């Protein structure tokens, strides 16, 4: 039998969020509101990590990159954050999960959990995000901070 990438005591993030319907509604709603406010250049959620340290966090630039991607400006979107397509896909998947009936959703969540445990997909994406962030900080720090600060 193939060994699972995620041990039993580790919560697979995506499936555990999907299981909590209220949390999914709050997350999708807040993210949607945030992206709308940012696209209208209105004050919205500000990154506490950047505010605290002066260093952009691994997720800084994702909202603007997602908005640019939705507008079809792919190159500009990648300049802000290369993980915008994955982020958008995750948000769309979470939104669609709210529309699905329980009879379809429950097996889908079980399958997602199994996939997350077997492949460690979410952990790999998060690790990739951290590496991407470290690379930007190490090799392009000034440009990165300037880009995020606006």
């Amino acid at each position, binding site marked *: 039998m193939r060994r699972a990438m995620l041990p039993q*005591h*580790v*919560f*697979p*993030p995506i499936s*555990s969020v999907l299981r*909590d319907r*209220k*949390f999914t509604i*709050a*997350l999708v709603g*807040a*993210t949607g509101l*945030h992206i709308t406010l*940012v696209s209208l250049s*209105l*004050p*919205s*959620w*500000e*990154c*506490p*990590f*950047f*505010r*605290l340290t*002066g260093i*952009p*966090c*691994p*997720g*800084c*630039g*994702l*909202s*603007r990159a997602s908005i640019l991607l939705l507008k079809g400006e792919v190159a500009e979107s990648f300049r802000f954050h290369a993980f915008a397509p994955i982020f958008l896909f995750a948000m769309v998947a979470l939104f669609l999960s709210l529309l699905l009936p329980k009879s379809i959703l429950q097996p889908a969540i079980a399958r997602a959990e199994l996939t997350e445990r077997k492949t460690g997909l*979410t*952990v790999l994406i*998060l690790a990739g*995000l*951290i590496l991407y962030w470290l690379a930007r900080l190490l090799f392009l720090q000034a440009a990165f901070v300037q880009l*995020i*600060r*606006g």
Partner: protein
Amino acid sequence: MLAGGLIGIIALLVFLGCAICYIIVLIKLFQNEGLVKGILGIICGLFTFIWGWMNANRYGIKNIMMIWTLLLIIAIILNFAFGVSMVPGYPNPTPVVP
């Protein structure tokens, strides 16, 4: 000038309050949900905020969440009305969004 300075001090205090609340909730997130969701909480502060509210009663952080929410509302009002950043040294800031 004096009013501007006062607003700057208020913004700094709001920033410190927000930062303390964020760190407290982030520690709770790491303790109760593990490393993976903890890292997710660093990457996405909004995730930490929502998780905090969803689990406020369970982990006894309702007061922290209420303070954090109040401070965030004040920060947004300050930003909207006066264009004041919570970070000192950025006189004409653009809000730093994730």
